[in-house]
């Protein structure tokens, strides 16, 4: 079990907040030792594989939280049938692979958190995060690691640089590395997603990570 998690509300810049008043980012920092998932985590994945069946995957988009993320994807110009929402991507992978395959402790923790709550959880290397974390719109000339970013993109950023495109690529060097000792877990809240589900997602991820740390 993890100790009491210190959840922090990230900033949302004024332009975004005006358009999406209920958009938010909640994050927390936890110790991590990336590596192979321990047996209890792998057992949880197997159990989840058995419980997650085809009809459940089909009905996913009618459930309130996955639906809320689909709607948000539409609102920000992403086609959720082209680039899947995280929970749908997990469901599709489950159908394709026949089960939730364990990859490593961090990925498994994010998968379990998303699967149990429907809320996508992101992870960053705490050493790469500089200052306050939040959501904002990029101005022209910014980069995501070494890649140029077009202006007007919605990104997860710290006080100095974009860390990841929202529900997209993470900047090189900002993802959790094998050498990472601490990581930042962040969950994006959109309209229609209860606050408690966002917090639960972070709890599940933190608790799973703590099992292997």
């Amino acid at each position, binding site marked *: 079990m993890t100790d009491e998690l210190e959840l922090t509300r990230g900033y949302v810049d004024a332009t975004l907040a005006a358009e999406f008043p209920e958009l938010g980012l909640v994050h927390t920092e936890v110790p991590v030792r990336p590596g192979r998932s321990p047996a209890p985590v792998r057992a949880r994945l197997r159990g989840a594989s058995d419980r997650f069946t085809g009809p459940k995957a089909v009905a996913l988009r009618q459930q309130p939280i996955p639906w809320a993320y689909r709607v948000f994807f*539409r609102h920000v110009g992403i086609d959720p049938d082209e680039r899947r929402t995280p929970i749908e991507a997990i469901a599709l992978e489950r159908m394709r692979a026949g089960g939730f395959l364990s990859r490593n402790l961090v990925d498994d923790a994010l998968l379990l958190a998303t699967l149990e709550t429907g809320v996508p959880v992101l992870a960053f290397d705490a050493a790469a995060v500089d200052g306050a974390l939040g959501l904002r719109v990029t101005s022209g000339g910014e980069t995501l690691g070494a890649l140029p970013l077009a202006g007007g993109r919605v990104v997860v950023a710290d006080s100095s640089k974009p860390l990841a495109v929202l529900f997209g690529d993470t900047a090189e060097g900002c993802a959790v590395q094998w050498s990472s000792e601490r990581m930042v877990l962040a969950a994006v809240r959109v309209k229609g997603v209860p606050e408690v589900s966002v917090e639960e997602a972070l709890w599940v991820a933190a608790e799973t990570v703590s099992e292997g740390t």
Partner: protein
Amino acid sequence: MAEVLEGFEEHALRAVPPVAPTEVDEAAIRRLLREQVARLEGELGALFCSTYPRTGFEWNVGSRGGPRLLSLSELEELRDELAAKLQHNRRMLADRTYVEELHRCRIEEMLLEPERHKYVRVRAEDIGERGCKQWHVLPRFGLIGILMNWWRVKISSGCPLARGLRPPFRDG
């Protein structure tokens, strides 16, 4: 026209205050459009579940290069495309279910009078169901059945079983 205006003096006409242009609250319109998009997405989701396991439906509406803030016209386009997609898929589903209903009636007729539906075959997918089940009208006892006009509906027992050993479950 000149007679109509005769009674008016020019200065009286000038005294009419100009109509101020209406200010459009774009944020409110965008909010409204987003609500419409959400409602359409909900209806599309429900329709998606209703169509399962049928295939051949198109759900993509096209990405707008997100994640970014969409303009008013882009939100309008998105709303219209979603509405069109919903309408198209609803019509397609209605057509399919009509054909499926005909197939169901045909199965009933086949069961009642197999000799009137010689060699007709209806598959599970023809009635909008999953699986490999099929209703096939065949002669009883082969050639004798053909000569004696003895026909029956053979209902298949389903999909063939998978052969070989089950692959081991890999969990990393």
